[in-house]
């Protein structure tokens, strides 16, 4: 597959995520959209990883591990995402406990 297709796909997903963040008011859904963004990034990383790997192979390097760093990067992103989710959901729950709402439009005690 042309790499461009992957780029387009990932960017489309990324932007859908961004649009979701912008349009929704539910904190949890916003957070989910952010996860969608991260996933699009992951997809792109894997695609680039394969691209660089293929390029290295094409350049004649045998047994190369070129591109593996990107896949590891994806791994780390997932790790971090997991940690973030733990903290994030804890915060959202805390908020919900106090206000019984997860609507970000009600977060306006702090302004100006």
């Amino acid at each position, binding site marked *: 597959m042309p*790499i461009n297709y992957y780029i387009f796909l990932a960017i489309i997903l990324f932007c859908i995520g*961004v649009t979701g963040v912008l*349009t929704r008011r539910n904190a949890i*859904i916003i957070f989910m959209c952010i996860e969608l963004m991260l*996933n*699009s990034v992951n997809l792109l990383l894997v695609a680039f990883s*394969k691209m660089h790997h293929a390029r290295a192979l094409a350049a004649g390097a045998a047994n190369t*591990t070129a591109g593996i760093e990107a*896949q590891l990067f994806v791994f780390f992103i997932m790790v971090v995402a997991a940690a973030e989710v733990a903290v994030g959901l804890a915060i959202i729950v805390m908020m919900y406990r106090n206000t019984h709402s*997860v609507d970000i439009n009600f977060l306006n005690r702090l302004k100006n």
Partner: protein
Amino acid sequence: MGATQIIFWILSIVAVFSAIMVITRKNPVYSVLYLIITFFAISGHYVLMNAQFLAIVNIIVYAGAILVLFLFVLMLMNLNKESEPKKNKFMLWASAFAGGLLLYVLLAAVHTAHIENVKGIHVGNIGLVSELGKALFTTYVVPFEITSILFLSAMVGAVVIGKKD
């Protein structure tokens, strides 16, 4: 059009469609479910690109753990109805427009890149567990260890935030 391509297109359409559904569904539970579908589609892409490890991890971690957690929280909070109030119309359109514009500029920027079409995206075995494991515990041992700090802090944080005083 080979089988790979057909699968690619199907997966892509599924991913994009379900992603759009994620952000448009009123009911948060539907959103989560559509997100799971998206992640499955992405995992499919990983398989397509011979990155089996990540494909599995993606399903286990994201679809399996993280999104279940989301679902759990949603259920806990009893948010499984179409409760979300409408956003200001103007802001809604402005937001959608901004998202579209971002898509446009990103594509335009990257499009000028002339990234060559690499054939045989599924070749190579770097996506396999053995290769990744080797790299992870040699070259990438430092970040690997450092993630422990991250986890520790997340753990501590979850305790601090979550524990009832």
